[in-house]
């Protein structure tokens, strides 16, 4: 104990007062400046740590060396896509859901990994580099949100795998990443005149106090944790906890034809599905070629498979969706590749769109003819 210190309660009081004032001032400054996006760009990835192969996502950081966060600049800053583009590189972005992100797949087994493995080179000598920008959420709006950020990384081609589960209007804003980026989403809704509610109550609009350091402590901690888990990711290459035994999807179904809010078959129209979001993505891509792919799904031959293709899709809904997608693509002149039944049922794992390592390999071969 420092008995010779001249400290008194007055000194302690001054220390506490100064600390409190500083704390208050920093909080107010933080709420005023709202620097989370800027802070998200400060990263150890791509210079000290290797860039991630896919966007950060994970609920168990200690095991998966990964975590879910809502800060889009931070997510992209941690991805290898934010590395400078090489002169001889032809950048191909692959959007999509968990099937494309690679649920239960190592990075090299994802579609992007398999395509990179092919070592494709264009006639003019440019190397095709595929970037996995999939994210494990079923929502076209999420794809659009990610594409909006991804466009600044100069793509040369965009592959956009989609499936019916991403189309329903009511599902578009279901996930925190969309709800916690209200300004970006509203901007997209306004710019592309999307049929989504800009005032949807699910949007999270923090007030001034919620924008302080105290209010934003979780997003701030997430930024730090994303850097922390980067060390174990760099060391192990593991960014997902893959169980030794992967559970299998359901093959036998009840006598049930319900889908989303419909208990019985109805006639679907383009208004029921968010084709406007798909169109916005094509418009956003501008001069950059875009290839829409109807993603392969698991087709069951088990009980009641005459009613349903799989646990997600009754036949009536999926068949109508395919017809609508084909018609809309033709009408809008969108390049569409329908690969819905291209992968054998054995190559699906726990959901109708999650693939075994062989699945993306087959898919890559199917896509090859459509690549430059």
């Amino acid at each position, binding site marked *: *104990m420092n008995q010779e210190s001249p*400290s008194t309660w007055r*000194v302690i009081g001054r220390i506490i007062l100064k600390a409190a004032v500083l704390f208050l001032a920093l909080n107010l400054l933080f709420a005023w400046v709202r620097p989370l996006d800027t802070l998200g760009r400060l990263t150890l990835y791509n210079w000290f740590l290797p860039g991630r192969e896919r966007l950060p996502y994970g609920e168990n950081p200690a095991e998966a060396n990964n975590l879910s966060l809502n800060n889009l600049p931070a997510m992209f800053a941690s991805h290898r896509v934010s590395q400078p583009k090489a002169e001889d590189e032809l950048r191909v972005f692959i959007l999509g859901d968990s099937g494309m992100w690679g649920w239960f797949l190592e990075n090299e087994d994802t579609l992007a990994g398999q395509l990179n493995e092919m070592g494709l080179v264009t006639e003019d000598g440019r190397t095709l580099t595929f970037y996995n920008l999939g994210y494990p959420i079923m929502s076209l709006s999420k794809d659009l949100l990610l594409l909006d950020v991804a466009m600044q990384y100069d793509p040369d081609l965009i592959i956009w795998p989609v499936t019916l589960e991403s189309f329903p209007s009511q599902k578009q804003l279901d996930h925190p990443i969309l709800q916690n980026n209200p300004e970006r989403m509203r901007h997209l809704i306004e710019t592309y005149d999307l049929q989504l509610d800009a005032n949807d109550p699910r949007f999270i609009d923090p007030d001034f106090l919620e924008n302080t350091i105290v209010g934003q402590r979780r997003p701030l901690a997430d930024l730090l944790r994303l850097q922390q888990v980067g*060390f174990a990711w760099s060391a192990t290459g593991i960014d997902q906890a893959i169980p030794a035994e992967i559970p299998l999807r359901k093959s036998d179904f009840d006598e049930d034809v319900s889908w989303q809010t419909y208990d019985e078959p109805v006639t679907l129209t383009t208004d029921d599905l968010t084709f406007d979001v798909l169109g916005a993505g094509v418009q956003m891509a501008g001069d950059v070629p875009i290839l829409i792919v109807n993603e392969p799904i698991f087709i069951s031959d088990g009980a009641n498979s005459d009613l349903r293709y799989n646990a997600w899709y009754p036949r009536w809904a999926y068949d109508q969706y395919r017809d609508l997608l084909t018609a809309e693509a033709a009408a809008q002149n969108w390049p569409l590749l329908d690969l819905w039944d291209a992968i054998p049922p054995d190559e699906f794992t726990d959901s109708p769109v999650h693939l075994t390592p062989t699945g993306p390999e087959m898919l890559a071969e199917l896509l090859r003819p459509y690549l430059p």
Partner: protein
Amino acid sequence: MTFDPFLIAILIGLGLIYAVLIKGKWRGWFLLAASVIAIYWLQTATAVRFGDYILQTVTVVLTVLTWWVTRPSSHKEGKAVWPSLTREDWLTLAVVFGLVVALAFNRFVDADYRLTPARPPSPLWVAGILLALGLVWAGLTRLLRRADQRKVLTAVILLIVLLFIILKSPPLTTAASAYWRSLTGQQVALGSPSDLVWLGFSYVAFRLISTLRDRQTGILPDLTLREYVVYVLFFPAYVSGPIDRAERFVEDFRELPQLKGLDANRWLYGGQRIFAGMLKKFVIADSLALGMSLTAENAAQTQSADWLWVLLYGYALRLFFDFSGYTDIAIGIGVLFGIRLPENFRRPYLSTNITAFWQRWHITLSDWARFYVFSPLSRSLLRRKPRPSKTLIIFLSQMSTMLVIGLWHGITWNFIIWGTWHGVALFAHKQWSDKTRRWYNDLSNHPWQKRSWTAVTWFLTFNYVALGWVWFLMPTPQLALETFGKLLGVIR
């Protein structure tokens, strides 16, 4: 439960109440009550029924028993006789008994408001068992009234060591857990070492043994039961040390009535230590713990030697910041209550040789081992006839000391190898420094060479210690060897 910010805030609040409201002689009683209650509160729930309550009650009983046998004996008719209890001792006994039984009333309290982590056994049962123990004790005391105190002390040391071995040896802990489960009607097959998490026992055991040995050697000061119980169970140091010495602790304890409650210097110093400790533990160590330090899992998954080294250094730093942060918090809280706990760390990773490292890392544990293992063993070997060579004496003493330190962490092959790893290094360093002393002293005339040599020895020491943590961390020697293989690039 470990120290978390909420708990620390509560303890600081308690410190404030103590400083403002508790005066004079009541301070000692306050610390007694707070310490007894805190050990039940800090204990985590155990899988075996009533485990949390019973284990801490055993700690209390063992503490009282050890105090009993360490009381100074007087001599009547050539035989050692223990004096009877003073009024204060009786009062302390009553307070401790009352608190332990009162804590069992948490059985009737809603889980959210309990001071015990799980439902304790019936207070009546607890009181009955304690009274029965008291009667057995009284009978034993009568029987041992004229027994050789040294032998009684040795018997209690052996009892504590036996408990320690059961607790630290996974197969024995599993067997003990299975036995416990058989008594409480739980599934015996589910018995596992994690069932018997006996919070604080490692530290308590070493404190108890130190007083037993000090009594044997005649250097233990006379302590009242109240002083003794507070010394052993003092709540800031209960979870992670430091391991104080009774004669030092009691000096502060006896000064408590004169302590100025709201002493600005003391509160400033205590606050600084708590703040520094929280920064080390909750900011630095916990950050390193998430993905930035070696674990058994990521060691197996790591693909390159370079990154494995990064994670190993991360682990070394994490261990230091975690443990030294805890120590800072414990010291800071201790200061708020007027007890100055000893330092446990003095920049250990800046050491330039392994001997210096062990003088600066977990100081109170290494001091304990030096005092109660190294010194008596080397003295005993020196007295042997024929006397072994000095080199052999040093080797045996250093190896034994480090083995005890290793085994204190757990009775597994990895901790034995870790202790040996450091024992060998200490012995090698002793031999080296003996042979190079003149050369080293000459280096003072060559500042650049001395600086370079210091840098080299720091690098070697730090890396040797860091590599030693591989033994410490990995669950089996096989995994540790595989990690070494990866670190050295032999295994991919």
